């Protein structure tokens, strides 16, 4: 029997023979990630293990992105703990301050993740790197501590769901619309413990950033991983990140899938997830006229340069609706520079947006854009759970950057074609 992408990637990291879902295999890992919230817990577990060293200081990455710039004493203390640990163990991939960005946007652009890699992170959106053909998934702090020390972990081989993409997407359709449509159809537990594998001729229409956006939200369907093949599109992105990957990754033609479904990109309309679950998805036309208090463009889902370009295209020569706050957070310092050089920041500033630093910030209700009771926000982030961005009485809608920018101008949820 042929191998799915998930089976192929796990097979490439284990000495055992991978033959069916449910099997437990021990795998070597290429990279271990933790952030300012989860690293302190992993460091604590490492201490209980009696470990003083990490398996390879070049293969452990610590990103203090959630509350950066540190919002209070507690977050500053956490970052200090992580910083001291990085210094003590010789970890060079340690990010805070002016070199720090949202982890899942930062690692790919630094060339730290790529196809055929196996990456584990103490963060549920570690699955983002599947967009580049890496098997990447989130684990708990004890698991991450063990992986940091041993450079290995264990996995139960997941069954896979095949998502076949076809058609040519229209102008406003991106990776977010693909994945929201998918989650809306299979539900927040539709891929529980499973791998979502994207395939088909429609892949050609999705650039590497769009693929990472789609893989990012695999966890919102309960998935263990969201996987894309690695092709010329992937390699072109990675060359920019300073990597010379060239080994294609594709599933075997006779791989077995637990189920499959089709998405015709040509017929896809911009999608919006309504409160309070990411699977409460509607085409934008059905939710137009929902009045908004805030729009956030940023995060590990849609804070990359292609997202900012799309937003700028719509915001150019327009202004934000009176009474609405538009907050734009380029996801990394490099993206910030590019937006500056390309004149995007000027467009945002003239439109009346608040431009913030690279940070997770409001995405998890941390800081820099918290919602009051009764307020409504449309965000390009990935979770709209009750209270995710502030008050339990607030509401969060999710969309791609085109709908977000158009809605900021209109003051209410709006199809980008209207602006």
């Amino acid at each position: 029997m042929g191998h799915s992408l998930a089976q192929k990637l796990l097979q490439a990291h284990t000495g055992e023979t991978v033959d069916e879902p449910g099997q437990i295999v021990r795998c070597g890992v290429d990279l271990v990630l933790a952030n300012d919230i989860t690293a302190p817990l992993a460091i604590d577990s490492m201490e209980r293990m009696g470990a003083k060293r990490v398996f390879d200081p070049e293969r452990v990455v610590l990103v203090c992105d959630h509350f950066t710039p540190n919002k209070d004493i507690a977050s500053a203390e956490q970052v200090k703990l992580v910083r001291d640990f990085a210094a003590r163990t010789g970890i060079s991939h340690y990010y805070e301050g002016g070199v720090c960005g949202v982890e899942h946007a930062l690692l790919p652009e630094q060339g730290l993740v790529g196809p055929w890699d196996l990456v584990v992170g103490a963060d549920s959106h570690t699955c983002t790197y599947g967009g580049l053909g890496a098997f990447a998934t989130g684990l708990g702090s004890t698991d991450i501590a063990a992986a940091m020390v041993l450079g290995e972990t264990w996995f139960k081989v997941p069954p896979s769901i095949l998502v076949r993409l076809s058609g040519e997407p229209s102008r406003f359709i991106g990776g977010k619309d693909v994945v929201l449509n998918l989650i809306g159809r299979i539900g927040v537990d539709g891929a529980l413990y499973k791998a979502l594998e994207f395939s088909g001729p429609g892949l050609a229409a999705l650039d590497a950033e769009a693929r990472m956006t789609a893989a990012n939200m695999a966890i919102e369907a309960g998935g263990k991983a969201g996987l894309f093949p690695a092709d010329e599109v992937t390699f072109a992105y990675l060359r920019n990140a300073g990597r010379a990957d060239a080994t294609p990754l594709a599933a075997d033609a006779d791989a077995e899938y637990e189920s499959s479904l089709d998405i015709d990109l040509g017929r896809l309309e911009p999608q919006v997830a309504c409160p309070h679950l990411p699977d409460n998805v509607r085409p934008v036309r059905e939710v137009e006229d929902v009045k908004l208090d805030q729009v956030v463009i940023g995060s590990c889902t849609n804070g990359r340069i292609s997202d900012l370009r799309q937003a700028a295209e719509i915001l150019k020569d327009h202004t934000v609706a009176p009474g609405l706050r538009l907050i734009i957070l380029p996801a990394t310092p490099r993206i910030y520079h590019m937006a500056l050089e390309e004149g995007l920041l000027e467009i945002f500033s003239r439109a009346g947006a608040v431009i913030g630093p690279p940070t997770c910030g409001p995405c998890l209700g941390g800081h820099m854009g918290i919602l009051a009771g009764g307020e409504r926000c449309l965000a390009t982030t990935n979770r709209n759970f009750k209270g995710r961005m502030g008050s339990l009485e607030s509401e969060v809608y999710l969309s791609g950057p085109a709908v977000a920018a158009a809605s900021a101008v209109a003051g209410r949820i709006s199809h980008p074609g209207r602006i």
Partner: protein
Amino acid sequence: MHYTGKAHRVGDHIDTDAIIPARYLVSTDPNELGQYCMAGMSPDWISRVTSGDILVAGANFGCGSSREHAPLALLGAGIPLVIARSFARIFYRNGFNMGLVLMEVGDRADILRDGDRIQADAEEGIIRNLTTEQEIRVRPLPDFMRRILESGGLVPYVRKRLESAA
């Protein structure tokens, strides 16, 4: 990794709040947590359990929060092994990482009834219902998983590996 004990059956979707209610999370001591094992389902459930007994569950056992207290509570109650139709993802990882043996058997869980005497060999993947003389076979436990379990979980396993390497 041989176990013999009485089966205690529970249903589908037993969540971590049923296994150990949040109000008891003030401790991480398995013995203390063990006294309240399954208190969220039935407060006196634990009084029927003898050390070494085996829990047999339905689908999605351990769903809910990622608390590592849930497998610890089961271990503290003297239950070394849970056999289930299926396990929730995080519980599955946490269980092994805390040293609790888990065997996933699908529909065949139905041949194990409440009160049956059960014998299990996790290493070989064999479960025998001594009361009805039926047998279930699953994939044997890989060697490295056996070592994690024998060490008492992931933390002592890593500690032991580091000590033997030093």
